[in-house]
């Protein structure tokens, strides 16, 4: 039957994937591949740059061009790829540990520069691959392997950070909303400038069990309850303190992206020199 399944972009020969049962990474991967199919992307025009971590392993399972970068630096490699060949559609696939904690500075400056990249950040609230240490998105009070008595720090609101730094598109969904994740990725890929999609995801081996959510289904139910569109979120008193998160498109702008500014500057300089760049 004729539904989109994105299987043309999936390496089925090395399945099953390495992720734990119920891990959100597979759900986001599936949504991303369906988005590729819906946008009719050709393999040669897409580059996926991934970082280090569980989600960073995603490049093993896709048939588009992939670049596996160093920890926290996926955005920098992706910036280079895009600057070298602006015709490519460049995605950045990094987790919360990689994208905000190790590579937080790159995130701020990619958004400020408004590079034409689409970043999909799978946020599972801890460093899954290295054993469940706390990251910059671990909410206060939560238990991880390095905060056994509860996290004394506050978490980043990464979407708010990217909006403030100048990104053109900011959205958040949870893994309980597969169809919407696909839609957000399509929107992000279609909009020039820096697009940022945060997906609230389940670490079903470490973060969940550490915090009283024993099974993938328990985590899934909690996301359904806690991740709400803005109009529902606004009706709840002290929603942020109770652990609720807003979902949907949180910010959209049409600021010129870096490469169009750069080309305009080059054009002006060339004109000043009498047409020679």
């Amino acid at each position, binding site marked *: 039957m004729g539904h989109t399944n994105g299987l043309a972009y999936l390496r089925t020969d090395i399945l*099953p994937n390495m992720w734990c049962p119920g891990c959100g990474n597979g759900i986001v991967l599936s949504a991303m591949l369906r988005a590729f199919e819906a946008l009719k992307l050709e393999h040669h025009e897409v580059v996926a740059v991934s970082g280090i971590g569980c989600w960073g392993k995603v490049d093993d399972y896709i048939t588009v061009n992939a670049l596996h970068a160093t920890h926290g630096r996926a955005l920098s490699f992706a910036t280079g790829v895009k600057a070298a060949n602006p015709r490519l559609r460049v995605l950045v696939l990094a987790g919360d540990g990689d994208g905000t904690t190790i590579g937080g500075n790159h995130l701020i400056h990619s958004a400020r520069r408004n590079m034409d990249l689409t970043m999909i950040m799978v946020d599972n609230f801890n460093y899954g691959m290295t054993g469940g240490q706390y990251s910059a998105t671990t909410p206060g009070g939560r238990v991880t392997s390095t905060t056994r008595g509860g996290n004394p720090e506050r978490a980043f609101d990464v979407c708010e950070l990217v909006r403030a730094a100048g990104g053109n598109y900011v959205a958040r969904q949870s893994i309980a909303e597969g169809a919407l994740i696909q839609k957000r990725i399509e929107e992000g890929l279609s909009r020039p400038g820096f697009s940022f999609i945060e997906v609230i995801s389940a670490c079903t081996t470490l973060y969940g069990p550490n915090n009283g959510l024993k099974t993938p289904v328990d985590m899934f139910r909690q996301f359904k309850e806690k991740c709400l569109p803005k109009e529902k979120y606004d009706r709840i008193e002290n929603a942020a303190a109770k652990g609720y998160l807003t979902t949907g498109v949180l910010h959209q702008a049409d600021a010129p992206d870096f490469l169009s500014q750069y080309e305009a500057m080059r054009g002006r300089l060339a004109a000043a020199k009498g047409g020679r760049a």
Partner: protein
Amino acid sequence: MKKYTVQILSERCKGCGLCREVCSRQVPENSGCFNRHGYEYFRAAQTEDCVGCRRCLMVCPDFSIELTETGGA
């Protein structure tokens, strides 16, 4: 009514149970059997009850569900 057949690929399934959680008809169920990777996989039990909503396809993290339309008006 359109009819659908659901198949769960036992060698890819890790038994997380999210497909059953999103299914309004409880088509997938725990098979009670283990695959060669050691996971207790799910199987599509009442596949004739499937309404073709595709929620299981979108939630399965392991690409282990196949849905085919098998006729009907």
